[in-house]
């Protein structure tokens, strides 16, 4: 898909975020400025886009920038809900709805890539829901346990 110099010139400014840092990038006539200062993209850097993530490789380090879009915030899970960070199998469930848990308690154990991944309570509270069963294959982002 060709975005040529002309279109590049029309490219609106992009805001990217890593951690707490935001970078405002403008492209004007093929020249790139970051926060108003012209930069020269390093020759050996490599980058790919994946949805709103921009993966950048340079000298052995990898940076994951997130494109910030106005009016569309990335849906973040509720404070008390815990989900798998990757596809995994639920190996063991230690809690049931109504159970009181302390910060650091192991709520359930997932298994992925032959490793066990304990899911621990991020804070003290009560188990509201458990929405998985032992042996179930779960996908990332799907809520497994909710605390309140």
């Amino acid at each position: 898909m060709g975005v040529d110099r002309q279109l590049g010139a029309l490219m609106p400014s992009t805001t990217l975020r890593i951690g707490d840092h935001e970078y405002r990038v403008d492209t004007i006539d093929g020249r790139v400025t970051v926060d108003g200062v012209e930069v020269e993209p390093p020759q050996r850097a490599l980058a790919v886009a994946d949805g709103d993530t921009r993966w950048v490789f340079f000298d052995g380090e990898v940076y994951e920038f997130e494109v910030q879009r106005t009016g569309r915030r990335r849906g973040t899970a509720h404070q008390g809900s815990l989900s798998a960070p990757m596809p995994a199998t639920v190996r063991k469930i230690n809690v049931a709805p109504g159970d009181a848990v302390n910060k650091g308690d192991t709520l359930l154990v997932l298994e992925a890539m032959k490793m066990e991944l304990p899911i621990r309570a991020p804070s003290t509270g009560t188990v509201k829901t458990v929405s998985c069963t032992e042996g179930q294959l779960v996908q990332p982002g799907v809520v497994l346990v909710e605390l309140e």
Partner: protein
Amino acid sequence: MTIGRVLIANRGEIAIRVTRACREAGIETVAVYSDADVDAPHVRAADRAVRIGAAAPSESYLNIPVIIEAAIGTGCDALHPGYGFLSERAAFAAACEEAGVIFIGPTADTIERMGSKVGARALMEQAGVPVVPGVTPADQSNAGLLAAVRSIGFPALVKASAGGGGKGMRTVDADAVAAEMIDGARRESMAAFGDGTLYVERLVRRPRHVEIQVFGDAHGRIVHLFERECSIQRRHQKVIEESPSPALTPRIRAEMGAAAVAAARAVNYRSAGTVEFLVDGAGDAAQFYFLEMNTRLQVEHPVTEAVAGVDLVRAQLAVAEGAPLPWTQESLTQRGHAIECRVYAEDPAAGFLPQAGRLLLYREPSGPGIRVDAGIVEGREVPVTYDPMLAKLTVHAETRAAAIDRAIVALRQYAVLGIRTNIAFLIRVLDHPSFRSGDLHTGFIDQHLDALTVRPEPSTALAGVAALAGTSSVRSTAHTAERVKPAADPWASIDSWGR
């Protein structure tokens, strides 16, 4: 006896490694694959391929009858097990022998005798090889295991009796967590090896992990091919291995070599094997203890291939055909310095959490003294089902310092995007002053964890690169960017992931 066709009962980089050696020896290869590996690089590398079942290892790469049937059905006269999966199952070697298929490795009897930690230990004590104090309690209940832990003393290691590779292993350093640790070890042990029997052992503080490569032939000749220092580990999984070990004096090296050969001789060892030792202390006063014997080719065998100038897999093929060892002990020397770095799909900053997903961009380094063994290609999905090791980078140079520099520069050229890896972490380990000075022990990563897992700020110029990645104006990567479909974001929940 000449081998004409080999079935490779494995996947990933090791299957490709074995395929390459077979081809050099003029031997045909048959790959096996699960539903998760249709069209995987190891499948494409072989002359033929046979589907052996569903993605779950128990239904494919661990399914003995189906694999034996594949070997017979394709007219293979030998089978190479690689490492992991069935490579250390005596029943598998026996099934091959019964089916008239040569098992490229030791005999079933050898695997059996070394496979049980209890039996191996007794055998080693008999053979005069020093061992670490430990016990497999007859009472395998939590109470029985806890009693054993207390008698050995804290901290103790609880680990799979049948195991290896750090699976099913836990450190118990207090009564309070003992039950959870024992349960976890038993479950992992059951899942990985189909056997939940646990072994309890004294944990040596700040030990080094040094292993000796051994090799035997069918005529009773056994040699060692020096050591590999494997102290850089996390969660009992090796991360960086090197040879020579910066810690061994010539005297200790010779003593360990002799002990390893004695260990191998005690089980009539045939083919490539490794005797693992814990090393306590330094200089000529260092003590070493037999840990276990891995009755197979090791992940880190390229380190030995580099410093000894040998091809261990070709030698395995020759020995399996009944040929005598291609070397004598006197003909073997250690030359230069080799370092292997294991590239894992994992996030070191999030407790080394394994990662899965699609490789959006994958560029390997190359150059003099650089070897990459990989089982992956750009554009493919890294499945969640198998081991998170993506590739191995092995470098060889004249000195340890030069090998470290070479490894760092190679890693700085090793671009993997789309999945988080430990590459930047590996660079920080290699560049750490304590690593450079050779001050290694198995707790190295935990000790220096904060320094090794920092996430540096990108330069502002890289924000420019990132912004351009969404357009086609970044040369050489635009095509990749266009091909990639937005995928489900596994990190959406990373904030709520307890750690």
